[in-house]
C-alpha cells in the first residue's frame, strides 16, 4: 500500500515522465519549448527510477547539442550564446559519470567567466564610494550571462558543479575559484540572515533576503564549517516554515537535506500544478528523492 509520502513523490515523477518532449527535453510547462534548466531538474529527479535510463539518454543527447564552440551551453535551442546553465550540464555529467573533452571545455569556460563588477574600474569606483551598493567587488563569482555582474543563483549552481567535478579536473584554478566563489556568497549575506539575488544593500538601505536564494546559497556553501553556517541554516529553517513560495520551500528543503538537517516530510500528497521545474524540485527534495545528487561530497 502506498503511503501519503509515496504518493507525493510518485505523482510528481509520473507528471515528469508524461511531460518529456519528443526532442528529449522538458519545457518549463507541458508542451512548451525544451529548456536546459527544467530538463536538468527533471532528469535528476527521475534518475534511477524505472525507465529513467532511456529518458536520461534522450535528454543528454539534446542537451549536448546545445554546446557552443567555446564550451558553454545555450539555455534552449531557440537562444544563442552560452549562459550560467553550463553549470547544470557539468552537474548532469558527473551524475552520468561522463568526463570527456566536452565537459572539460565546459569547466574551462566556467573558470574563464567572472562577474563584471570584478574589474579594475569597478573596484576603483567601489574604493571611491561611487557605487550605490555595498558590494564587496574583490570577489569574482558568476553571472547569469557573460559580461554581467555576479549573482547568488548562478554562483551557487556553478559552485555545486565545480565541487562535483573537482576530482576529475586537473588544474589549480578550480580550487581558487571555488574558494573565491564561496567568499562572494558569504560577503553578500543580508542583515536578516539569508540571501537575496545578491544585493544586500542599496543606497544604505538593507534589503531583505529571499527564501529561495537562501536555499541556493546554502547549496553552494556545502562543506563549509558548521559554525560558519549555523546562522544561515537557522534562517533557512525559519524561512521554510514561513514562506508562501512553493519554489522557495523546494530549494530550502533540498539545501537543508544536503546539509543533513532534519526536515519534515510532506504532510499530504500535494497538488501538482503543471509547473515542471517546481514538480522536479519538489520530487528531488522528498526524503526518498534524489536531493543527494546536488551534494558535493563534503568538498569545501
Amino acid at each position, binding site marked *: 500500500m502506498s503511503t501519503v509520502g509515496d504518493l507525493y513523490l510518485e505523482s510528481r515523477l509520473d507528471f515528469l515522465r508524461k511531460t518529456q518532449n519528443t526532442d528529449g527535453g522538458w519545457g518549463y510547462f507541458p508542451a512548451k519549448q525544451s*529548456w536546459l534548466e527544467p530538463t536538468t531538474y527533471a532528469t535528476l529527479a527521475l534518475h534511477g527510477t524505472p525507465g529513467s535510463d532511456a529518458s536520461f539518454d534522450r535528454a543528454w543527447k539534446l542537451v549536448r547539442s546545445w554546446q557552443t564552440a567555446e564550451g558553454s551551453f545555450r539555455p534552449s535551442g531557440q537562444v544563442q550564446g552560452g549562459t550560467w546553465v553550463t553549470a547544470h550540464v557539468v552537474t548532469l555529467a558527473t551524475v552520468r559519470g561522463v568526463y570527456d573533452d566536452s565537459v572539460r571545455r565546459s569547466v574551462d569556460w566556467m573558470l574563464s567567466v567572472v562577474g563584471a563588477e570584478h*574589474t579594475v574600474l569597478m573596484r576603483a569606483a567601489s574604493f571611491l564610494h561611487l557605487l550605490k551598493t555595498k558590494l564587496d567587488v574583490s570577489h569574482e563569482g558568476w553571472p547569469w550571462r557573460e*559580461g554581467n555582474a555576479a549573482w547568488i543563483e548562478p554562483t551557487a549552481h556553478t559552485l555545486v558543479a565545480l565541487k562535483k567535478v573537482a576530482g576529475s579536473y586537473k588544474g589549480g584554478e578550480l580550487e581558487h575559484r571555488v574558494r573565491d566563489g564561496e567568499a562572494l556568497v558569504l560577503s553578500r549575506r543580508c542583515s536578516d540572515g539569508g540571501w537575496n539575488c545578491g544585493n544586500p544593500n542599496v543606497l544604505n538601505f538593507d534589503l531583505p533576503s529571499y527564501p529561495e536564494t537562501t536555499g541556493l546559497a546554502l547549496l553552494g556553501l556545502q562543506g563549509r564549517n558548521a559554525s560558519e553556517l549555523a546562522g544561515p541554516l537557522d534562517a533557512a529553517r525559519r524561512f521554510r516554515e514561513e*514562506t508562501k513560495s512553493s519554489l522557495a520551500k523546494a530549494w530550502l528543503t533540498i539545501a537543508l537535506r544536503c546539509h543533513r538537517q532534519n526536515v519534515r516530510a510532506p504532510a499530504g500528497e500535494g497538488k501538482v500544478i503543471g509547473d515542471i521545474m517546481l514538480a522536479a524540485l519538489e520530487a528531488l527534495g522528498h526524503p526518498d528523492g534524489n536531493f543527494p545528487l546536488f551534494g558535493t561530497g563534503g568538498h569545501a
Partner: protein
Amino acid sequence: MTRRQFIPLVGVAATASYASIKLQKPPKLSDGPAGNSAVAIIRARSYSEDLVSRMLEGVRQTGLDARGKRVLLKPNLVEFDSSTVINTDASIIAAAVELFHRLGASDVRIGEGPGHRRDTLDLADDARYRATIPKFESIFTDLNRDDVSPIRGFADEPEFYFPNTVLGADLIVSLAKMKTHHWAGATLSMKNLFGLVPGAVYGWPKNKLHYIGIPRAVVELSRHFRNTFAIVDGVVGMEGNGPIQGTPKPAGVLVMGRDLVAVDSTCCRIMGIDPEKVEYLRMAADLGHVHPGRIEQRGETIASVRTNFALIEEFSGLRLV
C-alpha cells in the same frame, strides 16, 4: 570570449550604468513627435469603486480602439508582501480584464515576468490575483519562462529575446503602479515594461538591462513596443524608498493614455517630480511628449490631484518646483 578579453570591455559600461555614474551630459530635450497626446486623469479614491466605469471613461477620453485585438495586460507584480502597495492592485487587473472584453478585444491575457522572484504563480496568489481575477490561471503567462523568439534592433544587440506571448500581442497594456524608484527616480508605465524581458534568458534580476543602462533600456522597450496603452494605478502609490521598501501614498487617480511618455510625464507631475529631470523620460522625448504644452490633459487637472511623493535624498533634485 576569454576572461582577459572581456574585462576591459565591460569595465566602462559597468562603471557607467551599474554604478550609475553619469559619464555623458543629458541630451537636449526633443520637441517630440508631431501632434499632441491625450492623457486622462481619472479620480478613483479606492479600489472598491466601480473601476471598470472609471477606466471606460479614460478610454473614451483618450480614444483607444481595442476591437478584435489580442490584448496583453502587464501588471507590476514584484514581491511577496500583500500588506504593502508594491504590486498593481488585483482589483485594477480584474477591472482591466473586464474593460477590454467590453471593448471587443478578441483575447485578453495577463503576463508578467518579475525581476527578482521566480515563483510567479505563488507571487500572483499572494497578491490576490488568483482569488480576484476570474479564470486567472487559464489567462496568465509567466513571461520569465514563456517560449521565446529573437528580434533584431534592440539596444544594438544582434539578437534580443522576448516571450512569444509578448510578440504575439496586438496591444500591450501597461498596468503600472505609481511608485518612486531607487535607481530610476520613478517607475511608471514605461519602466513596467522591464517585466516583458524573459528571466530564463537574462536572469533574475535581468542584469543585461542594467548593462544596457536602465534609462536606455526603458526607452528601448518603449521604442520597440509601440502598440501600447497605459493605465497607471495611482489609487494608492508608493513614496520614499520605492519600488519595494517605500510607504503607501494615496493619490486617488488612474492615469491613462496611448502615449506612455506623456502618461509617465503626467504621473511625475502629479507626484511632484519634474519629468524633464527624469533621465529616461528625457531620452524618450522623441517617442512621446514630455512638454506639458503638448499633452492634452483630460479628466482632472494635474493641480487638482497633485500630491508630492516623498523622495529619497539621492533624488531630491527631481522635485518639481
